[in-house]
């Protein structure tokens, strides 16, 4: 119970530190269990020191930086116990192009390290271009969804203004 959670915490923290350092070259981050000696009662803090800056909590980062860091935490948890399927619904929404590229490289690393199949919902053309295949969801009839295979060009047309 408690021992397993402490052990899982150490493994996840290890993955998280590595992922963060890869994403934010020159920065450092780590997790902490706080407010209680008992891991089943404790809170999970995310401490970050972005490149060139002092240590602070996740809340001091910008919106895009927070999203990328939280996504790294999700992937750290994932690596500790890889599921057969990982699905991500628009996690790249607040990211600028440079961070979308980092997100895609992190995702490619998850793909390389595991047998997991990934499903990624996105509106971002950069993310779309890095997928192994694309499904387009449409409503040719109002209120009725259909799903079709699309190539990148068709996908870009789909998300462009109707």
């Amino acid at each position: 119970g408690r021992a397993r959670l402490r052990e899982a915490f150490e493994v996840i923290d290890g993955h998280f530190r590595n992922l963060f350092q890869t994403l934010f070259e020159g920065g450092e981050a780590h997790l902490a269990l706080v407010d209680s000696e008992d891991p089943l009662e404790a809170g999970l803090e995310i401490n970050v020191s972005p490149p060139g800056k002092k240590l602070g909590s996740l809340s001091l980062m910008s919106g895009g930086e927070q999203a990328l860091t939280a996504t790294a935490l999700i992937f750290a948890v994932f690596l500790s116990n890889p599921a057969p399927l990982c699905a991500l619904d628009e996690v790249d929404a607040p990211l600028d192009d440079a961070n979308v590229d980092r997100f895609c490289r992190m995702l490619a690393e998850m793909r390389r390290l595991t047998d997991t199949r990934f499903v990624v919902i996105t509106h971002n053309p950069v993310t779309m271009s890095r997928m192994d295949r694309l499904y387009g969801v449409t409503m040719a009839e109002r209120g009725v969804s259909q799903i079709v295979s699309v190539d990148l060009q068709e996908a870009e047309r789909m998300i462009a203004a109707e």
Partner: protein
Amino acid sequence: MRFVRLRIAGFKSFVNPVEAPIDEGVTGIVGPNGCGKSNFLEALRWVMGATSAKAMRAGGMEDVIFSGTTERPARNHAEVTLVIDNSDGLAPSRLGRDTVIEVSRRITRGQGSTYRINGRETRARDVQLLFADASSGANSPALVRQGQINELIAAKPENRRRVLEEAA
């Protein structure tokens, strides 16, 4: 254990039956706002035994049944099937040695959900256990809902810790 195919009929905006292969690597899903992308992921979590209607943006679980448009009447059933390739034999042995496992969930208005594994009716609990054993329950941290990253950022520290617990 690999998830290889998802079949949806009558679930939210997927009133017409659809069948989507889930192949290796990374599959992207695209389309305009409101076309059904999140509904697709919700159908997957639903067949895995999700119990929270709220996490499906539904008031009650029956709200996942196609509720009709001005052109089409509401339906009475919704059914989703997840096809699992078990050729590595790693699925829990109580499922026998089938190389293909089909998990289905069907909900009928006024009657709740029934589950089947390879056609044989089973309890919700068995389906949840099947996926929990594979560290892939409907609440798995690997299934990230729209807006869930923002929730994680804003969460109180004790609520964030639950993410760890799901994985441990």
